[in-house]
């Protein structure tokens, strides 16, 4: 098909618009200057400072711990939800699973804040994790459900026909076949959790820091290239997780 140069130019401009800002962040993380203004020289200094920053290390540890637990729990619950949405006709479950994804994040953040405070639940790592699980379930469920929808329904029937009980059919046939989607969902949930700012912002309370919260306070107070360094590392982590997930379940990322 003939493609006009205008379409090419516009599309290239689109890709540049998407990537130049991120490249700048990465480049300046190696820049030997306090100002993000012009290139002075190459340095690892900002990374060195990052690893000497105890607060930052603590925030990273918190983020990883939250993401690990949240992704694990939300993968289990999300897989169940995806399976249930595929198999059973239910009105309530899809609404509960999909609405958290469809509405602005801030709404879930403030309503959970209200909820935790009214229950006298101390805000901190636990409340953040509980909140993350709630919004990650939907993403996992969507990925799992779309995999199930693409699966030949008669495979489950064939398992039953061959003498498998419903539980055996799930364990020996359905689960192995949806496993790539489950793992992709888990990686997505991990990424969403480790990157989440808005919901974390409302449910973390004063004393708890995660990487995004730390980045937020740094760019609100004083911008130093340390932010570039931590951003670069975080992007690298995300990149690895997402490429992995997209290898496991092609198309899974698009469904979000």
């Amino acid at each position, binding site marked *: 098909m003939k493609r006009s140069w205008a379409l090419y130019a516009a599309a290239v401009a689109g890709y540049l618009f998407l990537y130049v*800002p991120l490249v700048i962040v990465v480049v300046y993380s190696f820049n030997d200057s306090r100002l993000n203004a012009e290139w002075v020289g190459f340095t690892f200094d900002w990374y060195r400072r990052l690893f000497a920053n105890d607060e930052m290390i603590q925030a990273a540890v918190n983020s990883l711990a939250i993401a690990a637990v949240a992704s694990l729990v939300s993968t289990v*619950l999300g897989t169940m939800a995806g399976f249930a949405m595929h198999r*059973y006709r239910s009105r309530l479950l899809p609404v509960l699973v999909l609405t958290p994804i469809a509405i602005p994040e801030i709404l879930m953040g403030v309503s959970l804040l209200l*909820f935790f405070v009214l229950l006298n639940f101390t805000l901190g790592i636990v409340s953040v994790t509980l909140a993350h699980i709630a919004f990650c379930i939907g993403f996992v469920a969507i990925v799992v459900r779309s995999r199930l929808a693409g699966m030949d329904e008669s495979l489950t029937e064939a398992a039953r026909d061959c003498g498998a009980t419903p539980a055996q059919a799930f364990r020996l046939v359905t689960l192995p076949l949806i496993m790539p989607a489950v793992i992709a969902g888990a990686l997505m949930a991990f990424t969403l959790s480790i990157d989440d700012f808005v919901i974390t912002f409302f449910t973390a309370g004063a004393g708890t820091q995660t990487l995004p919260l730390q980045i937020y306070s740094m760019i609100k107070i004083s911008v130093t290239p340390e932010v570039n360094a931590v951003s670069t590392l975080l992007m690298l982590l995300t990149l690895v997780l997402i490429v992995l997930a997209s290898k496991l379940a*092609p198309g899974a990322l698009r469904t979000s």
Partner: protein
Amino acid sequence: MRWKPRGGSMPGTSSPAEGAGVSASGARHPSWQARDRGTGRWLVSGPPLAYLLVFFAIPALIMVVASFTPPGEYGGLAPLFEDGKANLTLEAYERLAGDPIYWEVFAKSVVYAGITTLCCLVLAYPLAMLVARSPRKYRDLLMLLVILPFWSNFLIRVYAWMIILGPQSALSRAVNAVVEPLGFEPVSLLFSSFAVLVGLVYVHLPFMVLPLYANLEKHDPALLDAAQDLGANAWQRFWRVTFPLSLPGVWAGAALVFIPALGIFAIPDILGGTEDTLIGNLIKQQFLETRDWPFGSVLSIVLTAIALALAGLAAWVSRPRRTA
């Protein structure tokens, strides 16, 4: 016997329509599964259902109740029951209805979200079109490249524009090098409505590309050939064929951009000036600074209502119809 021109049951040519037809109505919920429903169904859907009821539905309900309570003495909420009777009031709603300032913030948020949606559409369309018309083997990679920035941290993406638009940035200096000799005041790109809009567009762009691509990819290229054959030039082919067919994707993308853009608070917070207060900032303020929770709840409920109404509208407009 070997031929059967009327019956339409030439072996191999007819699709297994019966199997499919039965699956559509019966196989997805065959009744042997009905037997599993009692236990199996609740075993599977029970835990996620319970979790989301506790951590999504109940908090949402609490917010609705909170919107009808008076504010507490020291912020937060007043007790729901006082002297044995329910302590409910419409105070917060009256306050919202009575003060045009809040409506202005809502209006401003809608305008910002609207501009963002339009900009995203203009930027996303060529991108989606190019990917959709690329050779099949490159499409997934090109799409992954569009989505990848979306998966990087939201704050990092906003922060990148702080650098680009910052006072010492190459862009700012270049702009002022043009503006100042003309006798204007030096402009600050950062902390402006412009910066907020750039940030909003940047963050939400992939949400527009995805549904557009999903739609454009399904177009039959023969349609364009047919249009060309019938004498339509490139411009006419786009406006008379491609664009009308892509409208469901446009609406879906518009909803995916508009709704989250409406509730955003971090972008105005980081990139905006003092006048760039959007509804998200107002809600955040009520919950964390002023601690007027009933009023914050009212604002959140109105935002939810707008978001759900728009999502419903978009779903209705882009509902699947008979395709060519």
